[in-house]
């Protein structure tokens, strides 16, 4: 049994009138993901690489049970996101740099709140909170309202709070998006640490260097389709010079060509 399996995932959105106006399109529907399949393993980082609008966030949201696949299914430790979503939620964390924390609360309060939602007992919670807050240097700001934290500190708090339950699967949409170099570094280091701890990590990004720096496997997604999905080294090897950027551009061009033919 694979640790995480995305099986023939399809997702279509109905476009709202407002959205059609903004995107200047007459389409009523948008097929965001067109039959995606890949697997991810514990102790590895899987990177979904793709341009804007490729369907990365949609895929990650499906994995995180926030939205439901139209077709196909996703199995996490053999549990279906469609049929056993509550069970799946116990063992996953969904993060994004856009994830907001309620400004009104302190890191301390939020850590307690999410721990309780995950059914973690007070003693374990206290222990983890001390550990995590020290790990991210939040301890000094634990009683400061989120509104008054620096954006780097907010991101670290968000990371600590999303992982209160120490899940085996970490799903992170655009982990370094909009972060300053130092915070981005902290986040990446932490994810690498989590990999060593045996977690299965899936990230999405449109930044090639992020993939090269941390991913063990990579899937290139363009227009809702997965063009390749393999070990990083094997994907790189698709170009004669082993250049990921070349592979990526080649695939983008190819699919644009497909599109022109169609």
């Amino acid at each position, binding site marked *: 049994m694979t640790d995480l399996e995305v099986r023939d995932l399809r997702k279509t959105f109905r476009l709202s009138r407002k959205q059609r106006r903004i995107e200047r399109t007459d389409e009523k529907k948008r097929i965001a993901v067109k039959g995606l399949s890949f697997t991810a393993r514990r102790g590895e980082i899987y990177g979904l690489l793709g341009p804007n609008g490729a369907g990365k966030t949609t895929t990650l949201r499906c994995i995180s049970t926030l939205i*439901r696949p139209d077709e196909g299914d996703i199995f996490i430790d053999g549990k279906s996101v469609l049929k056993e979503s509550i069970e799946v939620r116990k063992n996953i964390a969904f993060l994004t740099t856009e994830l*907001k924390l309620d400004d009104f609360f302190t890191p301390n309060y939020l850590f307690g709140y999410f721990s309780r*939602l995950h059914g973690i007992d007070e003693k374990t919670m206290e222990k983890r909170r001390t550990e995590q807050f020290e790990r991210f240097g939040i301890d000094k700001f634990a009683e400061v309202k989120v509104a008054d934290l620096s954006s780097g500190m907010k991101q670290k708090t968000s990371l600590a709070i999303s992982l209160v339950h120490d899940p085996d699967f970490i799903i992170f949409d655009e982990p370094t998006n909009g972060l300053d170099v130092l915070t981005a570094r902290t986040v990446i280091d932490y994810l690498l640490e989590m990999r060593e701890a045996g977690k299965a990590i899936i990230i999405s990004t449109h930044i090639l260097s992020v993939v090269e720096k941390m991913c063990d496997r990579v899937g290139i997604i363009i227009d809702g389709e997965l063009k390749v999905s393999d070990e990083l080294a094997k994907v790189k090897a698709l170009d004669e010079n082993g250049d990921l950027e070349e592979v990526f551009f080649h695939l983008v061009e190819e699919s644009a060509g497909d599109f022109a033919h169609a």
Partner: protein
Amino acid sequence: MRNMFVIFRKELYRVLTDKRLVLTVFILPGLSIFVIYTIIGTLVQAQFTEPEDYETKIYAENVPDAIVHRLDETMNYRFIEGELTRDDIEEQIMDEKIDLAVIFAEDFEERIIDKSPNPPGVTVFYNQGNQSSASAHTRFSAVMNAYHESIIKERLDDPADYHPYILATENIIDERTMAAQGFAMLLPMLIIIFLFAGAMSIGPDAIAGEKERGTIASLLVTPTKRRDIALGKVTSSALLSLLSALSAFIGIILSLPRLMMADETMPDISIYGAQEFLAIFFLLVVTVIFIVGLISIISAYAKTIKEASMLIMPFYFIAMIIGIMNSFGAEVNQNPLVHLVPIYGPINMLSGVLLFDYSLTNFFVTIAANIVYIAVFVFILNKMFDNEKVMFAR
């Protein structure tokens, strides 16, 4: 179920530790009602009571002695010296230099005594828009009426002519019923308005706020049943709305003495017994949960707090109109079917309880109907929290 309490506690904490919210939701309603009603009460009272030592200034021409006597007995006044033209009179009344001008015909008294076929005239000038002028006029009219009666009495030979009938009026309403009517008119309307206002300041922030801030995803990704989210949000908002309405009540109760002094019937809440209070309590609870449920559904649908508030407005107006109509409606509607109607049913029932005019059947119909509505609301809300199109609409 446990997570419902976790969410419940967090929502309470959120509101109760926010000084700004505590001020606007729990202190301002009571305080502003107290201040406004006290001011209204004080003003109304001032309207009816004039300073005792006020000296009314009257300009008079050819006042008969009989009238002067009567004036001396009824009011504190002084005649203005000098001769004024009609224009002067009008100007001086407008300028409040004089309160009243009375011009009697030169040979007034002689013509009365002679029973002249051509009765003598009296012209009175005053300004109804000015309080002391209007009150001077009222008193002067009373003096003239008494004078009029005394003349008629003198002219009639037989006293029986003067008393063609004897009128006895009895106000048969007892104080308890009067107080009850006062409460039935005032409270249900205020209750509905304050419950709604309280719920409107809590509900949208708790649900639409989470969507707007983008914190809803963090909640939805935890292993929390959607039903627990719906219940946690609804119960916490309901409790907070009740507290907010309670603040308004304290304001009403504290300002009642001031407000009611004007007509001297001071309603006393102690006319009601335990059964009424219990009934009121249950009606309040189901009404507030109903309102909060409705507001929560709208908030779950809206993308922002502002949108939610806007969408709630029409419902607020409808509820307000129902409340006001109930205040002026003559009778408590005893038709059991009417008690099924949302908002109107409980308000009508509340009036009935306050008037001691209700049946237990209708009471239970009202409570049961609202419990069903609330269950439906929670079910819908539960579905909405589970619906990505609602939670992550673009």
